[in-house]
């Protein structure tokens, strides 16, 4: 007996309410955008400069005492948070201390870090500093810029590739889905106040790649079926294509999710934010390839006369001798 996620033959109608789906997707994007504009992102030091110190001690973390000890140093904005992870031992109490970038200095000076470490040692004598990272405002500004350029470049490159391989309507649909995924991911990071650092940009680009992977597989089938079922209308062809690929879509999403979930639970707290972004991306990416990319494709319509010689003159080399 085989495990099957969907029946062999499915005939769900995905396109009777495209307006509704596109509307919901649009609304979600709007919410994400508003959250991003008004609440902003919880940028890590990669993007805003400053220092993070990861501490580890046998005694429990007393955030209040840490804060009181550091307040005397007058270093401006200090965020202290305790970190929990199932992989920690009982005597492993971890906290993250984030210090804002200091005026006029590039990276935080060693003296400042020494002072902070000494102050914390006053509170918890056995404290260990397992990582100290410091980024100057100059670099962090550039990192933001590079990150934005990277995401835009990825979306642009993909737009061109799909346009070359398919038709422009497909490219628009795919890119709309990408923008949807990226925006929703940024939105959830803004809403849940999860720290947004350089690794999250990598996750964003991976989401772009994954979401596209999904969309392209559906589109590939649409292209095939548009030629196979010339007489049927676009809605029907789209429905057939999505139903045919549904089993694959779910299988792949599920295996990827399984793998990511393992990493989320067991991979440690250092990359949890990164993995969370990817999990979220796989879910929205799967949704968007059907309900955004294909729905938009349906709304835009597709030119169906590929088999006429003039339309495909550039690609039908095999007809030259015929």
């Amino acid at each position, binding site marked *: 007996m085989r495990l099957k996620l969907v029946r062999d033959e499915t005939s769900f109608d995905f396109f009777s309410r495209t307006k509704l789906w596109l509307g919901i997707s649009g609304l979600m994007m709007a919410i994400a955008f508003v959250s991003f504009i008004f609440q902003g992102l919880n940028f890590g030091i990669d993007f805003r400069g400053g220092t993070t110190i990861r501490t580890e001690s046998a005694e429990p973390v007393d955030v209040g005492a840490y804060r009181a000890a550091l307040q005397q140093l007058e270093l401006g904005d200090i965020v202290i948070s305790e970190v929990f992870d199932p992989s920690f031992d009982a005597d492993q109490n971890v906290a993250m201390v984030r210090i804002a970038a200091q005026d006029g200095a590039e990276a935080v000076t060693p003296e400042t870090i020494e002072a902070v470490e000494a102050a914390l040692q006053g509170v918890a004598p056995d404290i260990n500093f397992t990582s100290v990272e410091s980024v100057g405002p100059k670099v962090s500004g550039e990192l933001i810029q590079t990150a934005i350029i990277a995401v835009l470049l990825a979306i642009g490159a993909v737009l061109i590739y799909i346009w070359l391989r398919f038709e422009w309507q497909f490219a628009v649909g795919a890119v709309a889905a990408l923008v949807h995924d990226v925006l929703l991911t940024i939105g959830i990071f803004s809403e849940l106040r999860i720290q947004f650092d350089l690794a999250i*940009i*990598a996750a964003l680009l991976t989401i772009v790649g994954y979401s*596209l992977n999904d969309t*392209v597989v559906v589109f590939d089938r649409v292209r095939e079926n548009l030629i196979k079922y010339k007489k049927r209308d676009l809605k029907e062809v789209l429905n057939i294509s999505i139903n045919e690929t549904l089993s694959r879509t779910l*299988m792949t999403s599920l295996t990827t999710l399984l793998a990511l979930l393992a990493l989320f639970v067991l991979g440690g707290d250092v990359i949890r934010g*990164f993995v969370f972004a990817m999990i979220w991306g796989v879910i929205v990416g799967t949704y968007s390839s059907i309900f955004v990319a294909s729905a938009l494709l349906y709304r835009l319509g597709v030119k169906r006369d590929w088999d006429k010689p003039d339309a495909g003159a550039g690609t039908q080399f095999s007809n030259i001798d015929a």
Partner: protein
Amino acid sequence: MLQIDTWKRVLILMVVTFGVVFSAPNLFYDRVERHKDAVIEIEREGETEARLAAQSAWPDWLPATIVNLGLDLRGGAHLLAEVEVEDVYDARLEAMWPEVRDTLRPLRDTVGTIRLRDNTPGELRVRIGNPDNMGAALSAVRELAQPVASVAAAGATDIDVTGEGDELVVRLSEAEQRATDDRTVRQALEIIRRRIDEVGTREPTIQRQGADRILIQVPGIGSAAELKEIIGTTAQLTFQPVVGRASEGDEPGLGNEIVPSLDEEGVFYELERAPVVTGEELVDAQPAFDQNGRPAVNFRFNTSGARSFGDYTAENIGNPFAIVLDDEVISAPVIQSHIPGGSGIITGNFTVEESTQLAVLLRAGALPAGLIFLEERTIGPELGQDSIEAGKVATMVAFAMVLVFMFAAYGLFGLFANVALILNVAMLFAVLSVIGATLTLPGIAGIVLTVGMAVDANVLIFERIREELKTAKGPARAIERGYEKALSAIVDANITTMITAIILFAMGSGPVRGFAITLGVGIVTSVFTAIYVTRLFVTMWFERKRPKTLTV
């Protein structure tokens, strides 16, 4: 029909074997690493029993390819430094002063007295007594201009000389500035590399980034502060003529400066600013002992340094000169005799340890310009170890879940896909090890993601075979058409992912780049295993069994 040429089969099997053989050493990471370290140490410092034992921990004839572990996994320090290239402009101009002075002196009758203006960063200003004849002074100084030593600036000269009122101004030309910047950064890079090599840590990364930045990553070092100490933010090492003793707050004479002594509290020297020789011209420095048996440092100059030093010592017997490091006078010995050979000895109140360290410092040379640290990261080895452990466990569990899931969904074919998946990860590790890529924490996530996505190509094919089974005539035809039809979707889907991996690699740095590499290599190996390896398995199985019906 369903068949694969024999040569193709051999090729596929060879690639797979390569993957297994070259990834296997990663399973014995510690041993292989000890072996590799020992081999290097033996070559450098000779054999000892412990080193030989470590070397034999892994047989020589087996491949010893292992992935590098990134800083976030091994612990260590990361620095991004900006070289203050403009420092060098001033030094260059300062060094030109004697030349300018010597050029203008014979013209004193026409241009009048010449006086160097102080505190003019980025330019050399000379006030001349007779501004009416500025033209003569300008053309004389312009004679000193040299062509810029750079291909990009052919035809340009190194200085711009202009007259402003009664002042003659010498600046470095823009072409020269750019050429100097480039030289400065390259020099700094080389010196940093040498200093870190002196300490002998494992696999440091020292790279130029952009026009004036240097990225330094050293695994296994305690902290970024320690690394900074090794690199040192030392100013120029120089040998300068001593004008006389001075005390704090004295006004230095024109073209002179007041410099404190390194080990004598409250002692200051007035020195001529233009050095006789700089540390750049040192070729060797060794710890030694002077005739009284006190620790000292022997040094030797290159040819041009030896000439200037020889000339100077010949002319100045009986006068003191100062050895200046870090803007402090290490010692100010009196020149006893002409020193022609370009070698000498530095004595001072050194301990043996200090003289050794000074020799190292001199040998590595001083940095040509100051460094500003834009980014500093220290990751403790415990955190790295925790991350590796967590990554290992997570990868194993992810792997197991995917394997079980695939078998449940596709039965025998799922089993084929699973074997291919394991081989895929082996090949991924083999490629990463052979190209010397660095595995980072996000890189582990990349592998896990590859595991998840690698099955995608197989899923596409298997689903397609299922569909084809409904219409096609016979299982062989269905399998063949399944592979054929799924190909375009697989290629399109993976090329788009590849595009994002390439962009990530180009734009990212550090851990993000590590992720991009594993993702990119993972795409190639997973497409290969899906299209060729599983197909080979399926074909071989089919040839044996010749099933009449097929369930996928």
